[in-house]
């Protein structure tokens, strides 16, 4: 069953760009990534789902409920972490979390303590005195505390150090184990690649593609790194000798190819070269993404 369904969802601000006819859906139990550069419309889409802003046209449903008319019911089972988390400065962390929990009618004090311990957050500190990273931790806990069915996380790792990011990813995986669906936006592809099953790529307010991460990586390219023997020099690959080279680069003894042709052609071609070493790897999401954007700009 689709937990989140967007149907030509559109938000226009006067001059500022919003989002235009965004359509995709997220299945129950998925970890779904939402990637795109800053200002592409990630936050706008997310804030529409929570009814913080109203759509200009189109519609969306969460748990099968309309995001405008049944927003409160949706929010009852949703945990939301805003990209820039701000909380009441006069409260301490524990007070803020208790206040947050009271809206859902149940407070699991031991879960709160456990989460705080995992994230290494001192609950007695005043919110106003917290660093950006610690405020983010408060945000993470208030989003997870009531065991929501859907987690919506907007740029969740910003401000967290790598160790904490690791803990945070573990928490997300545990949430998924529990049955939660996770929708998170990021402009850091590595973390999306690491966690998500599927991703939607947004750019200039429009969805460029929605694909599984493995598909995105597999269907496209290989990065081929060939190190030549010391007594030879790499030569540029000609289309006639090996079709399917999208980009190539030579630096000293090392030749790098961005390749989406036939792998047997590649091996055949490479077999005739005086190589010391060859590596064929799936490119990182970053590389694909870069490529995606370049082709689009060319079109």
């Amino acid at each position, binding site marked *: 069953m689709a937990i989140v369904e967007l149907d030509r969802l559109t938000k226009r601000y006067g001059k500022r760009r919003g989002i235009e006819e965004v359509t995709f859906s997220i299945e129950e139990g998925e970890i779904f990534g939402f990637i795109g550069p800053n200002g592409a419309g990630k*936050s706008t889409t997310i*804030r529409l789902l*929570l*009814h*913080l*802003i*109203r759509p200009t046209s189109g519609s969306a449903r969460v748990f099968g409920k309309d995001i405008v008319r049944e*927003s*409160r*019911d949706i*929010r*009852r089972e*949703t945990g*939301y972490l*805003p990209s*820039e*988390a*701000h*909380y*009441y*400065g*006069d409260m301490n962390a524990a007070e803020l979390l208790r*206040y*947050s929990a*009271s*809206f*859902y009618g149940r407070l699991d004090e031991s879960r709160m303590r456990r989460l705080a311990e995992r994230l290494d957050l001192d609950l007695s500190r005043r919110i106003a005195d917290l660093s950006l990273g610690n405020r983010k931790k408060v945000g993470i806990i*208030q989003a997870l505390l009531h065991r929501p069915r859907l987690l919506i996380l907007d740029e969740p790792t910003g401000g967290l150090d790598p160790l904490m990011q690791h803990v945070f990813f573990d928490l997300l995986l545990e949430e998924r184990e529990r049955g939660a669906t996770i929708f998170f936006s990021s402009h850091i592809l590595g973390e999306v690649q690491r966690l998500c099953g599927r991703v939607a790529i947004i750019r200039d307010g429009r969805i460029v593609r929605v694909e599984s991460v493995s598909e995105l990586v597999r269907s496209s390219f290989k990065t081929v790194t060939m190190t030549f023997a010391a007594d030879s020099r790499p030569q540029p690959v000609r289309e006639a000798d090996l079709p399917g080279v999208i980009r190539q680069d030579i630096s000293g003894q090392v030749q790098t190819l961005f390749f989406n042709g036939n792998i047997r052609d590649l091996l055949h071609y490479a077999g005739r070269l005086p190589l010391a070493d060859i590596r064929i790897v799936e490119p990182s999401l970053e590389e694909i993404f870069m490529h995606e954007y370049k082709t689009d700009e060319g079109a």
Partner: protein
Amino acid sequence: MRRLIFRRELKSNAKGLVVWSLVLGGLVLMMMSVYPSFAEDARMAEEMLDVFPEPIARVFGMDTLNLGSYTGFYGVEAHLINTLVGSVYAALLAGGMLAKEENDRTAEFLLSKPVTRTAVTLQKLAAVLFNLFILNLVIAIVSFACTGFADEAVETDILAWYLIATFLLHATVASVSFLLSAVMRRTRSIASLALGIVFLSYALHVAAGLSDRFDVLRRVSLFSFTDAAAIAKHGGLAMPDAAAMALISLLCIAGAIGYYRNKDIAG
């Protein structure tokens, strides 16, 4: 609903309420403690009246109000402070009430909780009115306690009317400011605008009192609804004045709820 936002607002505004209550209660006590020496010497009161040019005396209601009586003295001195200072408190409190969530960027936290916008608006409005009620209760207690300074039989009904009118005025100023708070986002601009309305309104009230020619100004000033001299002369708050304040309040509150329901929250 467990009125979580209402309770939160009471708690976070408690300190301000205590301070403003102490200040206003203290001011009333201070002013009314001077009354016995006035009442003792009625001539002194008349002399004081002579010191002021006639239009000025009229602005403060001294032509109608008898400074030698408790309610007359109260009407000239304390009532002015109660309405004016209390309105400043009402404007600041109500003006910040909704907009502070956007201004401090906590709106995203609050509005992603399972509460409707209307519930948020109503609970915050209730918090404003409750705070104003407590402030006015303090003023009322001090005002009635100070009747102990008077030797004569105090016209308690007139005093009560002053207090009712004051509370209504505070609620009206608060409603106007609350509407600003729903529509605008920056608390500082709201505070300036709301205080501007209070002081301009008071200035118009003064100007209207200076000459009959400015009488038309009376109709656009909130303070004219609670004019002490008019209340004393009329023996109570005139129905049209009370109705006007109620109408302004209801329109502003309805506008605030309606606007906030559909407001795009700044991210």
